[in-house]
């Protein structure tokens, strides 16, 4: 290794850092450390003059390592790496010490904060000495896209991509397109027909020259990596020719919760206790009738069935409150004299036009009854022979504090949306992660909500979490835009800081294989060593951390680099 020549730059960040850290003292303290050729400070290192300072010094003083002590590397690591590159040194020969978010902003004692800044800078200096140059890499992108799920999200994404002239393979397990929306009668809050919205869309998808629809088809296996996937499909149990594509959209949706596990509601026991989806079927058929063909005189709609309850699902399904209100409108139109009871736990009307929709519904002569989801669920039981209703709902009405009985002929259970039973298979096939509620995890909950940590794999619609149609459609269009972006580029950069197996040390214990969240590690049966696919690898470091033989090195996070950093941070004794 060439002799390290390190330049250290301490940023004031205006007064953001300099107010709480004695920048001059830090600069001076680290200037005499081994291999430090120069140490300077400047008001704004990220500014053009700040970057120019680094670039000039690299050329003038022949620096081959750079440390900048400033803000979080999340903000400006790339800025300074680019500056290094401009000056002709490899961008990975740079290290950043965070003396703002992790120091000046969180401390109130200037003396202590200065000491901490010195420790952090020394750690970076010790580390950067062992940095190695790394080369950027990219892969070409196959312009076709695989979309899993033919619901409204999957179809929207398919049309968006196909309309841009790119091939789409749309795989649907059922024998028709449309997903859950195909079961809806009207939509909220505008009470427009779901069918009128959906049918033209299905026609467009089916007839689009750039969309190939696979119905009754299951995904068997996906191999490859961003830009270069291939898949095996199975149509009704028979294998289909392999398809290749560059990106994947998972739009597998959710399914309705089965309420038969909730004893209080006797679903499955009483024929006129039905789920919201079963009620949609009645609405689409145009007749609201009980099992025995009578028009119900009393209808109750119970909210939060399987939702917001630790016994079933802790989360809120987001759409059921509005669907329940939509039912009121549809029932009132069909049965003007019926008694309608909205038995709710909380009324959630967060979306555009939703609160107004709620206000409008309250004028429909219905009775709102509140129950305490945490304390006691309402109980449905059979009515007496001489009661003039089929069933009674016993409940503690929360607002009045009174225990009441509600007469009903039909009960609609607003069931939660939950993951499909086979979600884990899908997850394993395409390499995404699940949260505790079995929803697919997005790359960043705020700033990257449709991407996943696996390159080239996107998630849209309710499989990412319960949501309504407009949100699903927005996500589908967002993912389509992301994919069209990579297709337009033709290639995508792949992770540089990947893991590497030293074959002369790997003993073949295979500890690393199952820990990889990206299925990037496999076992070479001939050489009897583990192999990392560098395109799949995201550099998370899990395999390197767990390799008992020390055979796996994570580039840019080698043991040597990390231990030197720790030694640096521990080296000052005040």
């Amino acid at each position: 290794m060439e002799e390290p020549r390190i330049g250290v730059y301490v940023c004031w960040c205006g007064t953001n850092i300099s107010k709480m850290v004695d920048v001059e003292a830090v600069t001076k303290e680290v200037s005499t450390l081994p291999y430090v050729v120069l140490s300077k400070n400047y008001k704004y290192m990220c500014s053009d003059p700040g970057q120019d300072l680094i670039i000039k010094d690299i050329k003038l003083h022949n620096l081959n390592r750079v440390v900048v002590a400033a803000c979080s590397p999340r903000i400006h690591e790339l800025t300074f790496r680019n500056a290094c590159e401009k000056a002709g040194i490899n961008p990975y020969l740079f290290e950043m010490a965070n003396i703002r978010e992790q120091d000046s902003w969180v401390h109130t004692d200037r003396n202590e904060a200065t000491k901490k800044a010195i420790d952090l800078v020394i750690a970076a200096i010790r580390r950067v000495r062992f940095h190695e140059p790394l080369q950027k890499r990219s892969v070409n992108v196959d312009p076709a896209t695989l979309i899993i799920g033919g619901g409204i999200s999957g179809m929207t994404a398919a049309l968006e991509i196909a309309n841009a002239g790119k091939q789409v393979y749309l795989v649907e397990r059922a024998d028709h397109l449309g997903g859950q929306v195909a079961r809806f009668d009207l939509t909220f809050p505008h009470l427009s027909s779901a069918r009128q919205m959906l049918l033209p869309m299905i026609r467009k998808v089916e007839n689009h020259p750039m969309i190939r629809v696979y119905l009754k088809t299951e995904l068997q296996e996906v191999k490859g990596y961003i830009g270069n996937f291939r898949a095996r499909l199975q149509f009704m149990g028979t294998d289909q020719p392999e398809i290749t594509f560059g990106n994947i959209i998972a739009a597998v949706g959710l399914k309705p919760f089965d309420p038969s596990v909730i004893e209080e509601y006797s679903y499955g026991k009483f024929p006129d206790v039905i789920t919201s989806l079963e009620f949609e079927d009645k609405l689409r058929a145009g007749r609201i009738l009980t099992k025995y063909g009578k028009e119900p005189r009393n209808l109750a709609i119970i909210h939060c069935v399987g939702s917001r309850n630790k016994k079933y699902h802790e989360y809120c399904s987001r759409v059921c409150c509005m669907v329940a209100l939509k039912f009121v409108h549809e029932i009132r139109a069909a049965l003007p004299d019926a008694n309608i009871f909205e038995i709710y736990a909380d009324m959630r009307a967060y979306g555009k036009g939703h609160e107004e929709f709620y206000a409008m519904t309250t004028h429909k002569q219905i009775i709102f009854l509140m129950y305490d989801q945490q304390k006691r669920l309402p109980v449905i039981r059979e009515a007496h022979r001489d009661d003039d209703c089929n069933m009674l709902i016993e409940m503690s009405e929360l607002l009045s504090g009174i225990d009441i009985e509600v007469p009903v002929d039909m009960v609609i259970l607003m069931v939660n949306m939950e993951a499909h039973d086979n979600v884990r298979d899908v997850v394993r096939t395409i390499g995404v992660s699940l949260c505790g509620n079995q929803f697919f995890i997005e790359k960043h909950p705020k700033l990257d909500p449709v991407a996943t940590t696996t390159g080239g794999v996107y998630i849209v619609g309710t499989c990412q979490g319960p949501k309504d149609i407009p949100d699903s459609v927005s996500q589908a269009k967002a993912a389509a835009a992301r994919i069209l972006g990579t297709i337009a580029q033709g290639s995508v950069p792949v992770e540089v800081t990947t893991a590497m197996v030293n074959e002369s040390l790997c003993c073949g214990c295979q500890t690393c294989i199952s820990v990889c969240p990206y299925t990037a590690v496999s076992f070479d049966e001939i050489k009897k060593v583990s192999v990392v696919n560098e395109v799949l690898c995201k550099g998370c470091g899990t395999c390197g951390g767990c390799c008992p033989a020390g055979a796996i090195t994570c580039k840019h996070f080698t043991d040597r680099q990390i231990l030197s950093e720790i030694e640096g941070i521990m080296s000052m004794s005040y």
Partner: protein
Amino acid sequence: MSQETIKPKLKLAVYWGAACGGCCVSVLDTHEKLLDIVAAADPVFWPIAMDVKYKDVENMPDKSIDLTLFNGAVRNSENKHMAELLRQKSKILVAYGSCAYMGGIPGLANFFSKDEIFKRAYEETESTVNAEHVIPLPLVTVKEGSLEIPVMFNDVFPLNQIVDVDYYIPGCPPQSERLIEVFTAVVTGTGLPPAGSVVGANDKTNCDECKRKKSDNKKVKRFYRPWEIQDDKETCFIEQGVICMGPATRGGCGVRCVDGNSPCRGCYGPPSGASDPGAKMMAAIGTMIDANNPGEIDEIIETIVDPAGLFYRFSLPGSILGRKVL
């Protein structure tokens, strides 16, 4: 007379620090090859086999011993003095065996302080009656004269924390065959790697040679001690829930323990890429715990008996951890 016998014989020393004697025996365990060793080398200092006094060593010229095999850890002032003396007198100083290499079994004392050890040993053990709280002192003067014994240190050190070491031969004890290989290399002066290397051991860890069936299906619902399971004699121990240090331990022993249906205990120490075998093995074992909720994970971890002693059995003083913080 052949050429070899005219060539001056090498001078060989074998010494023990904090050791059990097993390493010295492993030299004798070369059986008839010992005759080849003494044909090529004269033992000049080897307390287990011959009577040589400290002063005899002190009187030897510097660098006059060609090869010293120092076994045992450095635990007291006598060990340290001898380590320094032998370094001064030897051309090649080898840390021989797990204790000299990384601290070994005596190194587990670094999980305690000297005071705690003295209290346990001289006051608390079930067989001790010591109402006057007598503990060993380095210097005791009685009317007949004064008695001096070495000072016990608070820490156990591997040899390289006291003096520069040329080579390391790991093992508890090292396999005699491997000693012969190294010895032959010294005698012929060929095939020795750069100073500071581990010799008489492999680059890869034990799994490489282990004949048991291994897969990536390492999921453990509870850990067992070897006697708690019916070993099927063919599946990887870890996959049966028995912690085997094999993946984190240099090969070289010939996987004898596993061949004898006992999990590897880790005496050959870590491979070159892993500076802290205990931490490496704990990280690996951590990934195998087949549970997602913290309570269940804790329950599974509870089934690992004496984790510190298990994972650092031979390596505590030489690892990054070093010792328990006092």
